[in-house]
């Protein structure tokens, strides 16, 4: 071959190899060109397709043109550094029987077993071999070998630049990808959208693949999966199986895990099926701050290009690792943000709840009756601005028979309170109170009635937790079915899944029970409810105290009134006593001498009548003085067992004559075998005498009718309030009765409606009976008569202190 031709061939090869077309096309052209110039019958290039030790691409051509060849059924080994510059193929492939070097299935090589192999390599790297083949052995002289080496060098330069260009393009793609990912990660808040963008980008980078993102929740490995890029359900199923199969392993890896046919456990049937569709399963751990937050899995289906090599390079894995780091950071950030915003929302909610419960507490404390407090509490429980436990009901505990009665039933109003109502602070409390009261009244009448008829006879059969709530005085949540045990009707009144049981206490004793729907509240809400119901309990106690205070204030006022009156009376009494004493002496001498005069005056004279009048009037005067003295005299009681029947009979006997004269029937009904009453006999007699006197006077001053009668009865009864047996004396007349306007004055000393009365009869009776710890009552029927009942305890210890009226003496 002459120099000129060599030069022409070389320049053509340079032209071909430095063209801009695809490298495979250029190689085919070069091979064809070499065959056309009779350098060999067939020229083939064995090339390394991706980085690795095997040559997997074969490009060949002969003088007719390119040979469409399948990829070699086995891989050629890449030339080693001590690879000879040029070797006849026979030395390289000396023995067609060597299975490692010559695959018997390679028909191409079988047909052309003779030839020469030349390295495609530069100083730093080997790229493949150029093989000159023929069906018969042929020789190449040294000049031609050198020439071929120059051509090889030229082709190597083209290969290298092509690879570098490819690599640059890949690098640019990766950089672009990274840039995209970065931008997406920064722009997106929620994991789902980040993942969808990310896997989109990744899928464009690694064509024909699918991805799954597993997010581990807290410390438990309960992955939440997001998947994308599956062409059909069959694939999806395979992928999920594989992912699940690796899930336990994935938790503990710290580096990307690549599973391909070479390292999958052969026993795994899952992967046998898997590799019919996919070529690799890549698991990337997402680690943030040393904590596993999830995994990102890729499933590559890059099959047609290679049967046994990953379509991945080291850089790709590194890229995926970077991706994983970014994704992990995003996940962590999203999680933190979620937590933060959740915490924020919770704190807003809590603030609202606290504010509300504060306002409700104020409303509670402003309420003045227990019923109102209970209704407010129910309103707060059911309303949407409160605890949203609608419906709620209140059962009241009745101590006398240990039963629980339905009292109030409340459910949330349909309408939400509008904001303007909230902002009107001046009457906010009233508005709130009204809203809550309204909420507790928003129940159909029929339900309300049905509920009010409800009665739990016993609490012993109640569910344990319910009983514990009542006994432990703490709210508790129970499943709603449990209330059926309390009462069958309760279930229909309390729909829902959970029920909160809230005992309402008053002075540490159960007062009632609130049952409310608890579907929408958490255990934490329960502690707020506890806070709130504690306030309700406090308010209840307060109202009770307030009412007690009011009543004791009222009784204090009346006591003060009585005291000031009795002070007046005391002064009056003292004055009356001293006057009475001063009067008594002159009275005695007047009376004495009047009597003496009366004796000396002859009968039937006018003077006799006068002196009689004087005597009579003095007797009246003396009676007044004696009454005054006996009212203001200190009482020294001689309590002895007395037969009341006998006292009544003796007193009645004293009046027998007078009654007969006035034609008054006396009816005496004595209960036989009455126990003796411990009392002062003389004082009791005085009481009876005064009462008889009053009755007789009431009858005799009545102008009409002639059926006059007085009846006296003795009996005994049991005072339920004081749980004590008491004796009872009743004196009834059919006289003129007491005018209603005077009824409040009859026990006041010196008050009288009679023209000759002292006004001390009933006050003396009153005081004596009070001293006996008894009770005297007037049952007046104006115009028809009066019944006076006197009740006395059978026995008692003498009073230690003075009674109110004793202050008089």
């Amino acid at each position, binding site marked *: 071959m002459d120099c000129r031709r060599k030069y022409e061939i070389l320049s053509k090869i340079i032209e071909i190899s430095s063209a801009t077309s695809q490298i495979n096309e250029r190689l085919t052209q070069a091979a064809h060109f070499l065959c056309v110039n009779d350098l060999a019958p067939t020229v083939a290039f064995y090339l390394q397709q991706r980085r690795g030790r095997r040559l997997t691409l074969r490009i060949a051509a002969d003088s007719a043109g390119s040979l469409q060849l399948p990829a070699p059924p086995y891989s050629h080994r890449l030339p080693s550094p001590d690879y000879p510059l040029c070797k006849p193929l026979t030395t390289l492939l000396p023995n067609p029987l060597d299975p490692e070097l010559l695959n018997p299935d390679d028909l191409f090589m079988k047909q052309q077993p003779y030839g020469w192999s030349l390295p495609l390599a530069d100083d730093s790297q080997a790229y493949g071999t150029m093989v000159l083949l023929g069906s018969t052995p042929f020789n190449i002289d040294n000049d031609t070998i050198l020439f071929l080496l120059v051509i090889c060098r030229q082709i190597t330069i083209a290969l290298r630049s092509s690879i570098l260009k490819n690599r640059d393009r890949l690098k640019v793609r990766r950089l672009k990808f990274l840039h995209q990912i970065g931008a997406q990660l920064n722009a997106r808040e929620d994991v789902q959208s980040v993942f969808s963008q990310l896997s989109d980008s990744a899928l464009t980078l690694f064509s024909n693949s699918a991805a799954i993102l597993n997010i581990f929740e807290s410390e438990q490995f309960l992955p939440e999966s997001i998947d994308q890029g599956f062409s059909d359900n069959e694939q999806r199923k395979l992928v999920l199986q594989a992912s699940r199969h690796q899930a336990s392993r994935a938790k503990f890896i710290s580096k990307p895990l690549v599973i391909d046919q070479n390292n999958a456990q052969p026993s795994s049937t899952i992967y046998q099926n898997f590799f019919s569709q996919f070529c690799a399963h890549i698991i990337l751990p997402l680690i943030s701050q040393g904590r596993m937050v999830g995994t990102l899995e890729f499933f590559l289906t890059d099959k047609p290009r290679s049967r046994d090599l990953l379509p991945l390079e080291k850089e790709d894995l590194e890229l995926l690792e970077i991706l994983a780091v970014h994704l992990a950071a995003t996940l962590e950030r999203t999680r933190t943000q979620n937590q933060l915003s959740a915490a924020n929302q919770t704190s807003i909610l809590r603030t609202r709840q606290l504010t509300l419960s504060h306002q409700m507490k104020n409303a509670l404390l402003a309420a003045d009756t227990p019923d109102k407090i209970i209704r407010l509490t129910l309103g707060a429980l059911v309303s949407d601005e409160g605890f949203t436990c609608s419906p709620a009901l209140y059962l009241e505990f009745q101590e006398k028979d240990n039963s629980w009665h339905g009292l109030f039933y409340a459910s949330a109003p349909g309408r939400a309170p509008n904001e303007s109502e909230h902002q009107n602070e001046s009457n906010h409390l009233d508005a709130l109170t009204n809203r809550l009261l309204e909420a507790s009244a928003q129940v159909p009448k029929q339900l309300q009635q049905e509920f009010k008829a409800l009665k739990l006879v016993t609490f012993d059969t109640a569910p344990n937790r319910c009983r514990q709530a009542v006994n432990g005085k703490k709210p508790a949540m129970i499943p709603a079915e449990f209330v059926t045990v309390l009462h069958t009707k309760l279930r229909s009144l309390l729909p829902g899944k959970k029920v909160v049981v809230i005992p309402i206490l008053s002075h540490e004793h159960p007062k009632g029970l609130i049952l409310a729907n608890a579907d929408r509240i958490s255990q934490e809400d329960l502690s707020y409810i506890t806070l709130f119901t504690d306030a309700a309990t406090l308010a209840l106690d307060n109202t009770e105290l307030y009412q007690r205070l009011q009543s004791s204030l009222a009784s204090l006022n009346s006591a003060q009134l009585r005291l000031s009156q009795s002070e007046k009376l005391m002064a009056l009494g003292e004055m009356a006593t001293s006057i009475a*004493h001063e009067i*008594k*002496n*002159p*009275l*005695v*001498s*007047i*009376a*004495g*001498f009047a*009597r*003496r005069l009366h004796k000396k005056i002859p009968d039937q004279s006018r003077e006799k009548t006068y002196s009689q009048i004087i*005597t009579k009037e*003095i*007797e009246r005067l*003396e009676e007044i003085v*004696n009454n005054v*003295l*006996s009212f203001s*005299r*200190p009482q*020294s009681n001689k309590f002895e067992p007395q037969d009341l029947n006998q006292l009544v009979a003796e007193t009645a006997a004293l009046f027998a004559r007078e009654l007969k004269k006035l034609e008054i029937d006396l009816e005496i009904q004595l209960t036989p075998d009455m126990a003796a009453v411990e009392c002062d006999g003389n004082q009791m007699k005085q009481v009876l005498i005064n009462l008889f006197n009053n009755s007789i006077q009431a009858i005799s001053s009545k102008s009409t009718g002639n059926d006059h009668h007085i009846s006296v009865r003795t009996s005994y009864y049991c005072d339920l309030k004081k749980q004590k047996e008491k004796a009872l004396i009743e004196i009834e007349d059919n006289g003129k009765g007491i005018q209603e306007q005077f009824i409040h004055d009859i026990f006041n000393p010196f008050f009288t409606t009679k023209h000759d009365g002292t006004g001390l009869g009933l006050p003396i009776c009153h005081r004596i009976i009070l001293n006996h710890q008894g009770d005297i009552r007037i049952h007046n029927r104006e115009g028809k008569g009066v019944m006076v009942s006197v009740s006395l305890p059978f026995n008692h210890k003498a009073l230690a202190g003075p009674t109110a009226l004793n202050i008089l003496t």
Partner: protein
Amino acid sequence: MDRQQYTILIVDDEENIRLLYREELEEEGYGIEAAASGEEALQMVPEIKPDLVVMDIKMPGISGVDTLIKIKEIDKNIPVILCSAYGDYKQDFSTWASDAYVVKAASLDELKKAIREVLEKRYPEK
């Protein structure tokens, strides 16, 4: 009972009462002496040696109760009837030394009854 044998000393600061008692009791047949105060009564008792003293309690000077005690020191056998407008003193143990206690009243029946009873008890032989 021969009432003229008995001398009754009436002690009362009220002159009208003294006069009333004297007239009423003389009519009954008793011999009557009268003193206007406790001091006067104590002077008279050793002289006249009364069979009975009827005495008021509330008097200027020595009270009736103190006079009663002094009379009993002179002669513990002289019976004394206290006679007062104050019903309360009936229960007062310091008046228990008296042989009877009578509340002054318009009617003198109670006083007369008490005098009769005390005398009969004190001098059963007469």
